[in-house]
């Protein structure tokens, strides 16, 4: 028995720009469904009439609470106040929104406001028998994983490598209730001070022949773009299989790919 709060946001399809459920928030909800049964509160701060919110209800949620506020308001205080009232054991959310400021700061600000521990990039959560601590698995670069232990309550942000979210079903999406709570949120001064314009891809910075990249010039850049990289070129011609295996093994050890 553990109470879980899930913070969900509205995403944006990268190609069409359509509003959709945010993929990492949907994964957070999927992770919450996998935890032992308890109260599950899904929270959203923003426009309650957005049809994309129904996608979360279609995953099997009965109720979604929306803290109704206008565009460009700062939702952190309202969310922290609401969560303080709910006092859940685990707060789950995606590690980065898509479609807003996308700074990934919100879970950290909420954790700071509530004085909770925060675990980033979670892909799995296992609770112990008493429900006091949780064993959490984090995703690292290059497909690596790290396990750690954390006491409840805590905030976890879910990594895109977490198990895929179940699809949204039409019936439950229709039946689910959206509970609207109007809140008074201050305008986001930091965001309004920023200038916004459509994103344009910049040319990729070349590392060859650049200012810090040695002596090179145009010739070196051309060479890097057209020629295949040549290796150090140690060649063993017709060794016996055992000699060859020994050479490969020693080289792998030298490179740190195999234990010595």
């Amino acid at each position: 028995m553990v109470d879980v709060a899930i913070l969900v946001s509205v995403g944006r399809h990268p190609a069409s720009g359509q509003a959709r459920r945010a993929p990492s928030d949907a994964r957070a909800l999927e992770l919450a469904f996998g935890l032992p049964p308890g109260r599950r509160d899904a929270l959203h701060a923003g426009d309650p009439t957005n049809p994309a919110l129904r996608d979360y209800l279609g995953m099997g949620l009965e109720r979604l609470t929306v803290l109704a506020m206008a565009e460009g308001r700062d939702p952190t205080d309202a969310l922290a106040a609401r969560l303080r009232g709910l006092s859940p054991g685990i707060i789950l959310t995606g590690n980065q929104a898509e479609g807003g400021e996308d700074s990934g700061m919100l879970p950290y600000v909420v954790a700071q406001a509530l004085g909770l521990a925060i675990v980033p990039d979670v892909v799995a959560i296992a609770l112990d028998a008493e429900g006091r601590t949780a064993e959490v698995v984090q995703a690292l670069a290059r497909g690596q994983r790290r396990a750690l232990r954390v006491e409840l309550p805590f905030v976890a942000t879910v990594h895109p490598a977490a198990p895929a979210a179940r699809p949204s079903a039409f019936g439950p999406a229709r039946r689910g209730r959206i509970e609207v709570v109007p809140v008074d949120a201050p305008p986001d001064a930091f965001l309004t001070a920023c200038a916004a314009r459509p994103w344009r891809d910049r040319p990729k910075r070349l590392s060859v022949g650049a200012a810090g990249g040695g002596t090179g010039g145009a010739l070196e850049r051309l060479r890097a773009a057209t020629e295949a990289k040549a290796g150090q070129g140690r060649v063993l011609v017709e060794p016996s299989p055992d000699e060859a295996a020994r050479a490969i093994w020693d080289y792998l050890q030298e490179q740190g790919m195999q234990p010595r």
Partner: protein
Amino acid sequence: MTARRRDPRAERTARIVQTEPRRRLVLDPDAIAASSGGRPRRDPRARRADATLQTAPRLRLDWTGKGTGAAVSMSAPGRGQRAAPAAPPLRVIENPACLIFAALDRPDGALSAHDRQLLAAARLLADAVDGAVVAVAPDGADDWGALGADRVIPLPAAWAAEYAPERRAAALVAAIARWSPLHVLFPESPEGGDLARRVAAACGERLFAGVESLSASRVARRAGGGATELSCAPSRFLSIAADAVAPLGAVRHEARRLDPPETSPDAPKLREARRLPVDPDGVGLGEADFILSAGNGVTDWVVFADLGRALGATRAGSRVVCDAGHLPRDRQVGASGTVVSARCYLAFGIAGAPQHLQGVGGVERVVAVNTDLHAAMIKRADLAIIADAQAVMPALLRLAGEGGHG
């Protein structure tokens, strides 16, 4: 190399000191040396000697004129080795107007390329306001001065290897409270981004995350699901995306060490962190670290699978192998498959079609086993073995099974 062309008429006029009652000339040559004008005169032989980089085994010339100065060509007339570039002068900033913190990652105890870019970004911001760059990082044997740091706040060296985000954040918050830097820069990497958000939340300030373009007056990042660009004047907390800033060239700074601030040793809330063993075949090819790859020269797929398991390598193959159905399509390396960026690529029986070589373009080390000495893969390889892959695989499997003590 150019010499001044002599202009005898001008020299003669310069030597005239008296015209009445009759013309008189100075005969001292030093008096006229400075005044001889005219066009610069080319000396093609000296220029060629300067451009000569090597004469054996074949002549190589560099006409760009970089790296060879007039002084070098005078003392040693251009033959043989090019002079080593002079060490940059030491730059000391005694009384900086402000401090710029660069909180470096140092993953696994070594400075990453992203860390170098971060120092370059901090240098850019510091030079605009006459400030000093302070590197805040787990201590190590790095030459901080050559990396562009004016000051260094060393954190315990052990923090580079272990997972201690809370202690790192607490140390940074204490350092920020003590020195109140103008900007604090972080790398937008998994660890660095986490630290940035922890510190920004603890300081109660906003983070301008994942800066894609940086100048002293303006920073820009991608937001709105990648559709919009937000830009503003540099805020206090910035995290810099990878490859957004070019690393510094040759510089030399002071790298004065500051005392790290005292932090109260709170019990960390995240405990017992440990790496989990992962199934190498479950890792996507694009992010695999060590790849065992098979081509047309491999026929025994059981031994190949055993070898992958014994070495802990992710299995992959060339297009031929995936077309034949020996490996699934998502295990194909090459232009029509996955472009991999592994640290080590062990290729058995792959000749190296251009499309396959494109796929291994980002690999650091290649080991190739092939029967053809003239295969393209052998040229690309760091260790090439001209032998039958089918014979080498069982031998390597045996050796791996014995842990290298065969």
